[in-house]
């Protein structure tokens, strides 16, 4: 159990700065997800936490202790890797017990601990097997077991689910989340998948180009993104963004009036989430007349790709009615569901 504190944490590779002095406080027992596109510095940050990368500048504290120069083993953290990193020449039981190698426990204590962890992860029947005889999900559970067995102060996960197929990924997401609720151990989790971030995190840290863009609870990030990048990155499908202008208190896209706005006249970026833009909806804002170019029926609703005077927009058709391709329809959003951004700085300007 420990809180983790990052102060101006920096990583340089030669003359290239991969992580630009980030600050972050992770409280005890929190599930924090670092999310961002590849190359954003999230994995590097995690590896600095683990002690696998040297820290170029700043401070890293785990449970209040400065660990910048501490060996990985001295930090008492455990890590789960993307490709599991479980050893093919050892059985499941030996793989899990591997984490106890330096613990100084007796054989009986180790066996009891391995059995306990295997029980929690549903691996009891597989203890004598080798990894080759396990499915991908079981292998990942073994890797988690090896991390759990030592009772570390924090778990670090480096894209642990990206080698699994979609169904298994959804299942493992919930398993890891339940495990966190049961153990209450601090977790730092790296992923490029915003769905994983949204579904698992207590708090999400959005990163890009070695900077932290925004930190917040999943709903907070969804509702109040600080900039265009976060707005597009969080939420699936991604937010529609249209070039617009404010003219006499109205937001105009092309020649369509999208709604009222209190800002001064000038160019603006207008964001509308596809979930907010409803086909034949009752909303008064962003009323768009458009042609259907493609549909993605999902069952309870259908995602509709629209062409609105040259702008590509995605909307949602609720219910089981699937609009015909080529047909013309009207979509609209409720007032207050429009996100405004500065076209130059890309910073959020509030909602309309």
């Amino acid at each position: 159990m420990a809180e983790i504190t990052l102060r101006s944490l920096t990583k340089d590779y030669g003359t290239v700065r991969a992580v630009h002095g980030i600050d972050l406080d992770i409280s005890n027992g929190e599930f924090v997800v670092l999310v961002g596109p590849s190359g954003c510095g999230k994995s590097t940050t995690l590896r600095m936490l683990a002690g696998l990368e040297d820290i170029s500048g700043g401070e890293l504290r785990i449970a209040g202790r400065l660990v910048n120069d501490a060996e990985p083993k001295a930090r008492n953290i455990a890590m789960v890797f993307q490709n599991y990193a479980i050893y093919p020449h050892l059985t499941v039981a030996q793989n899990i017990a591997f984490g106890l190698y330096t613990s100084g426990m007796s054989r009986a204590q180790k066996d009891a601990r391995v059995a306990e962890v295997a029980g929690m992860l549903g691996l009891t029947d597989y203890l004598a097997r080798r990894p080759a005889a396990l499915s991908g999900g079981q292998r990942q559970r073994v890797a988690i077991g090896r991390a759990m067995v030592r009772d570390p102060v924090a778990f670090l996960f480096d894209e642990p689910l990206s080698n699994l197929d979609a169904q298994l990924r959804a299942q493992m997401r919930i398993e890891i989340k339940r495990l966190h609720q049961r153990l209450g151990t601090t977790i730092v989790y790296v992923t490029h998948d915003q769905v994983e971030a949204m579904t698992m995190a207590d708090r999400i840290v959005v990163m890009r180009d070695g900077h932290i863009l925004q930190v917040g609870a999943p709903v907070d990030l969804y509702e109040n993104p600080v900039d265009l990048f976060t707005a597009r990155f969080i939420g699936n499908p991604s937010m529609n963004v249209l070039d617009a202008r404010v003219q006499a208190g109205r937001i105009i896209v092309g020649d369509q009036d999208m709604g009222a706005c209190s800002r001064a006249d000038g160019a603006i970026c207008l964001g509308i989430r596809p979930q907010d833009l409803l086909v034949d909806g009752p909303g008064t804002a962003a009323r768009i007349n458009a042609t259907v170019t493609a549909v993605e029926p999902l069952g309870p609703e259908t995602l509709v790709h629209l062409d609105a005077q040259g702008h590509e927009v995605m909307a949602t058709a609720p219910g089981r009615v699937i609009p015909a391709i080529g047909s013309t329809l009207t979509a609209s959003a409720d007032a207050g569901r429009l996100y405004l951004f500065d076209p130059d700085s890309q910073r959020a300007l509030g909602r309309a």
Partner: protein
Amino acid sequence: MADMSANRPEMLPWFARLQPGAVLVWTLLFLGGVVMVTPLVLMFSTSLKSAGQIYDLRFIPAEPTLNNYVRVLADGWFLRWFMNSMIVAVCVTVSNVFFDSLVGYTLAKFKFRGRYIIFIAILSTLMIPTEMLVIPWYLMSAQFGWLDTYWGIMFPGMMTAFGTFLMKQFFETVPDDFIEAARVDGMNEFMIWWKVAMPLVTPALSALAIFTFLGNWTAFFWPLIVTTSRDLYTLPVGLSSFAVEQSIQWEMIMTGAALATIPTLIVFLVLQRFIVRGVMLAGLKG
């Protein structure tokens, strides 16, 4: 489907299934096999002949006898040389498997200044032929008092550039995650090498062990030069002493050689199992 079954290959007589290319390949392989096996067969057959029959080149001896084996084994020298060869080959093999992989691992998995230069320096020693090194080795051994000792026979081969190169290449295929996972779990670097990296390269270790053992078991030139007393001869050097001036005792040389193949056969049979298992391990994802 029913009428096609008549054309299935297994329904045809064996000669009808042969294709011209296959016939050619099998013929060439057969001839190659004959060329390779004939000396071995001759060796065994000669070892079963008496001295008077050795120039009778029949494969099946007219009057087979085990007399040569009795003579060779009864002669105390043969067993002594056999043991010497065993000591030298085993020590050098163990040393190579240990040190070559230790250096290979370091060069493959640690980033440090000058590691490329060190690697090139090690590799460059491969280009120097043994014949050029023998005189410096001899002078060095003479200075250190290593002439006519086990250590004198063994020291040039205790580590090899080839083995280091081989192990480095194999360790490079071990994913870093395996090593980093062990590091996070609190293992020290030596234990990571021993408990994690080494088991993942067993095919390479087996191959290295086979090459090293065979090379040292059959080594002749350097042991001949560095040893002078008969009780330090290795088997090949000892066997050559059967060829004394004027009379070459072929039947004795062949008997000794036949006995000398036994350890190499055992080493190969034992280690090839690990090579096969190693290939299976390497095919694993994750």
